[in-house]
């Protein structure tokens, strides 16, 4: 979705605040939240990815939340969306009954035989990132949409987050490292020799000549 999280190329977000000798966690709860989320994730019982709940937050709340507050929000939303806990249980901290025997959806999906995905593109080929604006999670940042680049490497096959994050299918496909010249993305303000590399799923790309 075209949310505030997709901020590559935005202006005026201020100076970068550098904390010297930064601790791994600033408060003990941060490490607990992160580790709990990782552990439940490992059970394969989540039916919702990490990021959709962050990206669904109102923009102002997203910007004002600390990183681990985002993890906490996401953990709660994923537990609820996956029928692993109710909001009432989360509010009280006590289980209301026996845990529901849930099918580990993502693990089950992985057992399905997969048709080996064929790469549509080869290194050296010119491609264009599609002008797509899904209202749900995607990994194609806005700043690259509609822009032309060159395939530099085939990174292998991976599940498509646009569907997999919602348990709507793995849609495994090739992911490519694509080089975009900085001028293609940002015009004359960029140095001619600079570039930005993105890792893009097959679905996000079309042959360069398809559009013009």
């Amino acid at each position, binding site marked *: 979705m075209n949310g505030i999280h997709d901020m590559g190329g*935005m202006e005026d977000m201020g100076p970068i605040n550098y904390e010297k000798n930064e601790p791994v966690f600033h408060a003990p709860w941060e490490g607990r939240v992160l580790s709990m989320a990782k552990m439940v994730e490992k059970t394969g019982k989540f039916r919702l990815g990490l990021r959709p709940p962050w990206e669904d937050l109102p923009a102002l709340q997203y910007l004002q939340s*600390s990183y681990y507050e985002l993890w906490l929000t996401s953990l709660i939303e994923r537990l609820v969306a996956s029928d692993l806990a109710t909001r009432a249980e989360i509010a009280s901290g006590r289980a209301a009954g026996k845990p529901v025997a849930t099918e580990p959806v993502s693990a089950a999906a992985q057992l399905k035989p997969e048709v080996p995905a064929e790469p549509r593109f080869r290194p050296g080929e010119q491609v264009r990132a599609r002008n797509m604006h899904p209202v749900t999670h995607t990994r194609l*940042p806005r700043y690259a949409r509609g822009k032309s680049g060159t395939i530099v490497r085939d990174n292998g096959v991976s599940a498509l987050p646009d569907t997999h994050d919602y348990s709507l299918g793995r849609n495994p496909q090739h992911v490519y490292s694509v080089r975009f010249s900085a001028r293609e993305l940002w015009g004359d*303000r960029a140095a001619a020799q*600079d570039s930005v590399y993105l890792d893009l799923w097959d679905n996000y790309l079309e042959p360069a000549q398809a559009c013009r």
Partner: protein
Amino acid sequence: MTTNRRDFLSGVLPAAVTVAGVKASHADDHRHQHEHDHQDAPSDVALRVKSLESLLIEKGLVDRASLDALVDKYEHKVGPRNGARVIARAWVDPAYKQRLLADGTAAFAELGYPLERAAHIRALESTSAVHNVVVCTLCSCYPWDVIGLPPTWYKSAAYRSRVVIDPRSVLREFGTELADSVEVRVWDSTADERYVVLPERPAGSENLSESGLAELVTRDAMIGVTKVAPPAQGGG
């Protein structure tokens, strides 16, 4: 080369800027931003997390011993020193360097750093002519397994928004000045590749041992916002 909007405004419209309060509020913005990057935990959050932990333990989704072990791993076992050892090996062993650049995941495993996650490690070689810098504009992807959890600034709106469009100003903020002729490559981690920069070995480090070299390598250099500084005089 480029100026930002506020500097531009204060140059051409000083009166308007003052009226709009932009100049006066700049320092405040800075302070605000800092508070938002990592607030002190309101005890409310700590309590909510504690309560959630009891619930998940009761439900059998989490067990306390494994949870403690995982927190300990993040705090004490993973960190930039692991990546630094790999970089130092690549500097002294050209064959290892080739393996690192060809298959980062395997090369890290070779030195005893196997990856738990599905991510693939890719090492990017910086030279006097090419400078690599890593970001995740959409979120916070970072090679946890090999250099630890990302610092707060890496996850900040300021870094994520700006480094793709104006990498040279970001690098300058980190004290990294590049000649105009240098090619800057920004790597936006949008999928499963996790990027680690193999920085240029600094001048004056010829006599250092491998462990001495590893001491020079910083987290920031492996993200690509700085270079590796030459060893201090008389050091080694």
